[in-house]
């Protein structure tokens, strides 16, 4: 049987107190983190948020572009979450193409202006087509084959929940 000295017993009691304190502290932190996710502002910290998806908005487009004009871009957003989300930005991220093939794609004349400061709300479990008036423009380099074309504009969509 081991016989501990007074100094060893004191050290053992100190270590036990330290471990207890760390465990209690960690628990408090974990509880605080859970509370933040669960009740935070508009689910901002929820780790279970599902990603929104960007769909085909072709059913909603309006033919308003022509050389020298600005027009409206449309983006279809599906929010699978049980809470609303807000589209706050849409920025172009690639070459613009058309449904008219190479004859138009060689010179669409179309450019996209990055959109920031948006507040497009997509409801819980909803699909919404957002319109962005003035976001696209067409210059005189647009090929004749682009008349009536639908243009696909690669974008990155910023979403806030």
């Amino acid at each position: 049987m081991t016989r501990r000295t007074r100094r060893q017993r004191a050290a053992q009691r100190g270590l036990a107190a330290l471990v207890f304190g760390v465990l209690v502290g960690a628990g408090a932190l974990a509880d605080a983190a859970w509370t933040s996710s669960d009740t935070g502002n508009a689910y901002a910290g929820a780790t279970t948020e599902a990603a929104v998806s960007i769909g085909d908005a072709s059913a909603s487009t309006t033919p308003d572009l022509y050389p020298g004009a600005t027009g409206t871009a449309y983006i279809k957003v599906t929010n699978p979450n049980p809470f609303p989300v807000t589209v706050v930005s849409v920025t172009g991220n690639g070459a613009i193409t058309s449904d008219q093939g190479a004859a138009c794609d060689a010179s669409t004349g179309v450019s996209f202006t990055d959109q920031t400061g948006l507040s497009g709300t997509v409801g819980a479990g909803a699909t919404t087509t957002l319109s962005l008036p003035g976001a696209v423009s067409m210059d005189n380099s647009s090929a004749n084959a682009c008349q009536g074309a639908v243009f696909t504009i690669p974008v990155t969509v910023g979403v806030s929940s």
Partner: protein
Amino acid sequence: MTTRSGAALAQATSLLAGQTPATAHTGLTGVTVSWPASAFASGAAAPAYVVTRYNTLTGSPSAATGTCAGSVAATSCTEPSVPIGVWRYTVTPVDGAWLGAESPQSASITVV
């Protein structure tokens, strides 16, 4: 904020056809051509037109002259010195590289 990649869509309109022009004599050999405005399918007005003169005997087209030369940003123009012959005119809406359909030919006009 999270980000997702996808595609936005936009759509172009189209230029409608030109409308049949009218002609009138101006001076001894001049011809004034006028026509109703054309538009895009979206409703916006066509910004300009190309005027073409056709020889009624040969059917050959000729580029118009005077204020009818090139791209005309109006709905009337004048050729001050048209060669002797019998002519018909057409107008074609244009915007940059875009072309509308050419109008039907005008009634013939004789220059002597």
